[in-house]
């Protein structure tokens, strides 16, 4: 925090400075920063998926090598942490969607709860489809 000089009105003002650790002060700020940070982990899952698909495309030997690498402890730990962040990403953004989307049906605003429920339904349907695709 630093004091400041004068203003056009001749008043001497005190200008508080935002500390670098501002996001640790409140739970809501902390959750926000974690939500922003989660984007990096989402990007990691995208890279992981691309590498997986590439390995599958290269044939069985390459796919086996990928599986060996993917089962290394550090990759497993990274993926578990990534899963946590991706879940946080999904939950927090789902929760925020009704604020960004004012959906009107027949002149009336759709309640936020319905929009959030729609997203979770979509998530369950897509996850079910992927599971069916993988296990069939």
């Amino acid at each position, binding site marked *: 925090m630093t004091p400041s000089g004068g203003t056009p009105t001749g*008043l001497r003002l005190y200008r508080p400075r935002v500390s670098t650790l*501002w996001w640790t002060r409140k739970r809501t700020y902390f959750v926000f920063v974690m939500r922003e940070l989660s984007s990096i982990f989402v990007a990691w899952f995208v890279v992981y998926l691309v590498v997986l698909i590439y390995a599958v495309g290269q044939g069985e030997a390459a796919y086996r090598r990928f599986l060996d690498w993917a089962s290394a402890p550090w990759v497993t730990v990274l993926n578990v942490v990534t899963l946590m962040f991706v879940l946080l990403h999904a939950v927090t953004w789902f929760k925020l969607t009704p604020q960004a*989307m004012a959906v009107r049906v027949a002149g009336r605003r759709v309640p936020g709860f319905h929009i959030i429920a729609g997203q979770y339904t979509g998530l369950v349907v897509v996850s079910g489809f992927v599971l069916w695709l993988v296990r069939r």
Partner: protein
Amino acid sequence: MADSIPLRVSRFRPDTDSEPHWQEYDVPLRKEWTVLDGLNHVKNEVDTTLSFRWSCRMGICGSCGMNVDGEPRLTCGTFLSDYEPGPITIEPLSNFPVVRDLVVDLSDFMNKLPRVKPWIIRDDSDRMVEPDVEYLQTPEELDAYKQFSMCINCMLCYSACPVYGLDPDFIGPAAIALAERYDLDSRDRGNRERLDVLIEHDGVWGCTFVGECTRVCPKHVDPASAIQRYKVKAAMETVKAFLLPRGAR
């Protein structure tokens, strides 16, 4: 219930102090007393040098916003008994220069607000045809913007917004909510003019959707929603500018 509760108040006197310091006052703890009542008790009975803003005492004027235990609140709507046994820390709103004690300088907001043109804009042709006609609205048309018209400029949202704290050029939650209030008004034709201001770097795109503005808003205006809806609008305009011929936009 105890007889009294300690208030830990941030003091800053520009003529003598280089930075704020704390001062404690014991005030009577009564069930119906708000933090503002406690401060007025101090001002009237204990220490006349304490400075703070207030006016209506009923959550309408938006003057008495302060940080109470680190949260931006209207002190006239914040009860002492909710903070028992105290002490209750009372600081000026964050992200604004402090003039004295609990009084902050709001000139930054006062300069930003007119930039979003928070008034009804009509086409020149409307004015020529109907100079003093009444513009009627249906209840649905009123509903579309009513929520955003409840803003009382109390600045709690600016105090809660870390983006405004880190980048004071950001035009801020209340100004954007008020722009949305006029954009959604069926009588208004100023969308394009406001979008030109808000599409800039220090407009809606500065917002990272922390959502704190909405959480602290005492009038349930939901400025975060106004900003995100503006982003959708701005993005749609950009897409339209790419895809559609000029006449169809």
